[in-house]
């Protein structure tokens, strides 16, 4: 657990140091780099439901819910998946409903 999603703190490549703010070679993906020249760089996680515009988080959609359930059947926390708070709340209730009707396990193995 808590392995794959934590791709935190990859060191920036030295050429991409933000000492020259006029350089346009950085996409909007990463934070523009702090002025202090931190060597760490956290990839910005985005909420899947916001990006793909999934409004309805339904308990019947096992395929979707399974992505947010760890191997043992636990709900993966927001800090690992990047889901935003309102969507995580809906997701949690959907997963709990799915568990109740045996679509998802309470505890696997």
């Amino acid at each position, binding site marked *: 657990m808590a392995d794959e999603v934590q791709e935190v703190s990859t060191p920036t490549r030295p050429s991409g140091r933000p000492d020259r703010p006029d350089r346009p070679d950085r996409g*909007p993906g990463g934070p523009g780099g702090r002025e202090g020249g931190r060597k760490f760089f956290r990839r910005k996680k985005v909420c899947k439901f916001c990006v793909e515009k999934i409004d309805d988080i339904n*308990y019947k959609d096992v395929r979707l819910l399974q992505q947010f359930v760890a191997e043992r059947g636990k709900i993966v926390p927001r800090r690992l998946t990047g889901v935003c708070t309102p969507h995580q709340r809906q997701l949690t209730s959907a997963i709990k409903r799915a568990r109740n009707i045996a679509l998802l396990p309470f505890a696997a193995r």
Partner: protein
Amino acid sequence: MQRSYEVMFIVRPDLLDEDLDKLIATMQNHATTAGATVQNTEKMGKRRLAYDVKKFQDGQYVLFTLAADGTSIHELERRLRVAEPVLKFITVRTDEEQQRLEKVKKIRASRVKRPPAEAAAAAESEGAPATT
């Protein structure tokens, strides 16, 4: 007070198809006599259960979509509980969720009118630095 509900239930896997149809028909009957209107029924087929229920590893899923009030839903649930081949059921009230979805859709529709030009511009400014 009419509300929309979904009732999903699991039937034991060794129940024959005709018996399942019969069970569904009787349940619909019970629902309508209790004052609910069955809008849709869906047999979702046989599925592996995520955990054992009454020592069964598989189950046949059935989904009812209903417009009903609380008392008729209560009656239907009682019938399901009594029915021997039904392993498990869940009732979900859906009207509030549907209202919310419609609202979101409306907001999105009103917003969509603008973006095409904006989105294209954004895509350009995004794509340009990546290629250099």
